[in-house]
């Protein structure tokens, strides 16, 4: 027989102001199976918890219902309290009288009645609860960091410095990411390369870090503490161990006109190339798509000139499998190219640039060695227009969000332009200036007041080319909504930052959720910003949402901290709220008939086949089994199972149906 205790909390006056808590406790005392029912001012306080502990001991309770706040708030608290009194923590349930009742309804009979219904519901549920025990799993103390931009670099270094192993996977031939492309950084205008390069080198040299560049993560199986990652190392066609990095090959390669990715297409590179001088590793790779030898079967000049004989045309792609305990995703972002904007010419005008292209123009290591020159004719632009929110905050373009970094880098661009072209005129079209950050607003002010950048509050409707000039048609909303037309020599679009192409695919490979824009979703927008909903997988940097360097670094360190916490124990425990396929005595063994229609429904590939054998080893029946390590407890399989052979602990058929029955019970 059930012996249930009900504990109704006033939450100060938060609940008791609209719910008559004493009446609730009284009503609950009359429910079948309830042997103890009280109300108290603060159940979560020490004396409150003591009341629960004492009642469990004295009345030998088999279940506890705490009628107070949301279980999302205090469920761990009360379960802990029960546990301390010797009651299995999963025999404690909470009725949400605060968030779902007292705070949302006026004082009155109906509100108290609802509170009673909610308590009855949880009493009926808890009667059907089973004691559950945490699941223990071992931990592999190696982290996989996907992406070698500043976020990935920071995360890898922090984890490695914490004494744990790291495997870093970077898609490009070099780590460094977007930060390596930047000229100066706001708000200090210090050189991006200068602060980044030492970190890159540290990664390469760290004894705890294994670096795979020119490599991609192609599969991830397993679960927290026990992932198996599959990495494809694309053939570099160069034996890294032998190559000295002299780069002679890159000077002799006949393919010299390939648009350089690093320079955002504004410069050229060869087919065997090092993306940029400070690359880590600083060894060339052959881009097979552009290499003459791979295309025609002839050439091999690089092979001839290589003093170390390091060229390997027959090198295959290599698949490596590694065991890791945690994953940090730091795959970063990309931006819309100018071709995305019909109104700005579909990318037809060479002097309409993206912000990243401007970074390369302004960078001393860029194609113009830091001089601002027009890609079309090499002239120095006399008039330059910067357009913020190009695509961002524009539902018509499918991007409702703010790209967050543009306001700051536009101010920086305009400043850099004014510093380099003293007589030039610069305009910034903006919607609002979002400069929330340490020294950020001051930085923008400096651009306006000291560097004479013309900020025009309004949007640009169209850009077209006429007689060698770019006609920028816009409106100045602060000057009586006057239409403005600027004849510019160069236009820089602060195009929207977007998720990397392939982010969706990666999310599916990793089984993490992502938002409508394919940015990876954090587990909680406020309180769990670096975790994903998949245990053991963490987020760092702009792959989660656009952010600037300091924020990326902070999040990366946060993710690294989480990984190090996870790795601080050799075993971890998980909540047992997972699905289970029933088992019974022979001749049935299980009511599961092994149709496996649940298999495609499981987002975690947690459903396995289990063969039930007789004593002689003959297979009698093949039934489903849920891998407790993989199952996250969504219960989708449960609703699919026709014979109702799968159930989910904590939300069993009996429990939820009892809840429905109880909540609809007539008085």
């Amino acid at each position, binding site marked *: 027989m059930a012996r249930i205790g009900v504990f109704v909390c006033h939450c100060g006056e938060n609940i008791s102001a609209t719910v008559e808590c004493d009446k609730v406790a009284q009503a609950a005392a009359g429910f079948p199976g309830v042997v103890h029912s009280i109300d108290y001012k603060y159940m979560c306080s020490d004396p409150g918890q003591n009341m629960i502990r004492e009642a469990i001991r004295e009345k030998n309770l088999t279940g506890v219902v705490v009628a107070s706040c*949301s*279980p*999302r*708030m205090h469920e761990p608290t009360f379960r802990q309290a029960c546990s301390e009194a010797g009651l299995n923590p999963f025999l404690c349930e909470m009725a*949400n009288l*605060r*968030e*779902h*009742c007292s*705070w*949302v*309804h*006026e004082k009155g009979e*109906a*509100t108290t*009645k*609802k509170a009673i*219904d*909610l308590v009855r*519901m949880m009493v009926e549920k808890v009667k059907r609860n089973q004691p559950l025990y945490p699941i223990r799993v071992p931990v592999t103390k190696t982290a996989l960091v996907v992406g070698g931009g500043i976020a990935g670099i920071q995360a890898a270094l922090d984890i490695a410095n914490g004494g744990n192993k790291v495997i870093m996977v970077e898609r490009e031939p070099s780590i460094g990411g977007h930060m390596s492309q930047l000229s100066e950084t706001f708000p200090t205008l210090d050189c991006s390369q200068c602060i980044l390069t030492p970190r890159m080198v540290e990664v390469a040299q760290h004894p705890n870090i294994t670096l795979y560049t020119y490599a991609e993560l192609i599969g991830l199986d397993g679960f927290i503490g026990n992932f198996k990652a599959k990495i494809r190392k694309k053939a570099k066609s160069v034996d890294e161990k032998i190559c000295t990095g002299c780069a002679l090959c890159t000077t002799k390669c006949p393919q010299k006109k390939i648009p350089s990715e690093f320079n955002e297409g504004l410069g050229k590179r060869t087919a065997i190339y090092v993306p940029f001088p400070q690359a880590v590793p600083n060894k060339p790779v052959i881009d097979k798509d552009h290499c003459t030898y791979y295309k025609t079967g002839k050439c091999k000049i690089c092979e001839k000139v290589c003093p170390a004989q390091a060229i390997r045309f027959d090198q295959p792609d290599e698949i490596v499998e590694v065991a890791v305990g945690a994953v940090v995703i730091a795959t970063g972002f990309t931006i819309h190219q100018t071709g995305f904007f019909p109104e700005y010419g579909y990318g037809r005008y060479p002097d309409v640039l993206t912000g990243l292209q401007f970074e390369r123009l302004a960078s001393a290591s860029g194609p113009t060695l830091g001089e601002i020159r027009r890609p079309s004719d090499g002239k120095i632009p006399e008039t330059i227009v910067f357009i913020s929110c190009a695509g961002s905050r524009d539902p018509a373009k499918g991007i409702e969000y703010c790209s967050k970094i543009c306001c700051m880098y536009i101010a920086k661009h305009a400043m850099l332009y004014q510093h380099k072209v003293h007589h030039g005129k610069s305009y910034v079209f903006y919607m609002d200036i979002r400069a929330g950050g340490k020294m950020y607003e001051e930085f923008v002010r400096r651009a306006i007041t000291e560097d004479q950048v013309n900020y025009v509050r309004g949007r640009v409707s169209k850009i077209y080319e006429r007689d060698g000039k770019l006609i920028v048609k816009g409106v100045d909303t602060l000057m009586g909504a006057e239409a403005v037309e600027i004849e510019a020599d160069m236009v820089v679009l602060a195009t929207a930052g977007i998720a990397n192409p392939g982010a969706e695919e990666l*999310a*599916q490979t990793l*089984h*993490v*959720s*992502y*938002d*409508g824009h394919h940015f990876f*979703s954090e587990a909680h*927008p406020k309180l769990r910003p670096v975790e994903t*909903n998949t245990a053991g997988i963490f987020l760092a940097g702009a792959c989660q949402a656009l952010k600037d360097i300091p924020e990326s670094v902070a999040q990366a360190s946060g993710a690294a901290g989480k990984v190090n916490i996870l790795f601080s124990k050799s075993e971890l425990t998980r909540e047992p*709220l997972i699905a289970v396929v029933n088992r019974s005595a022979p001749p049935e063994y299980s009511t599961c008939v092994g149709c496996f229609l649940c298999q495609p*429904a499981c*987002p*975690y590939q947690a459903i396995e086949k289990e063969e039930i054998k007789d004593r002689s080893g003959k297979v009698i029946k093949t039934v489903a089994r849920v891998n407790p390590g993989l199952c*996250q*407890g*969504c*219960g*989708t399989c*449960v*609703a*699919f199972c026709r014979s109702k052979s799968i159930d*989910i602990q*904590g*939300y069993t*058929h009996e429990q*939820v*149906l009892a*809840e*429905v*029955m109880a*909540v*609809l*019970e*007539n008085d």
Partner: protein
Amino acid sequence: MENKIFEPKIVAFVCNWCTYAGADLTGTSRIKYAPNVKIVRFPCTGRIDFMLLLKAFGEGADGIIVSGCHPNDCHYTSGNFHARRRWISFRSLLDFLGIDTGRITFSWVSAAEGAKWAALVNDTVSRIKELGPYTDYEKVARYYEEEVNHE
């Protein structure tokens, strides 16, 4: 009894991560709504068995709310997509059977949409009030009352 204002009984089947949390936010934001709706918590909309909806009507529910995470926002990646497909088929089947699907509100309410939850509840309550008690179904469910009195 007849003079009493009809207060519909509505059960809400919601997922833990979005709508339950959204309803928590409604509370935290102190937005008021009608007390007719009582929430049953599930880990995910993917867990919500269609039979539960039938059982709720059978137990005298006048209306039902089913709500979970917006598409692409599922805590478990795809439970809501599975649920959506299930509801599309189930709903059309119910409609074909003459069961009033107008009494079932399907919705996506995220953890951030506390106001939406309140509005959804209020809308549903007022719609069900207009429709009146679900006597057609209740008569069938409470068949024995008639029979027992009859004999």
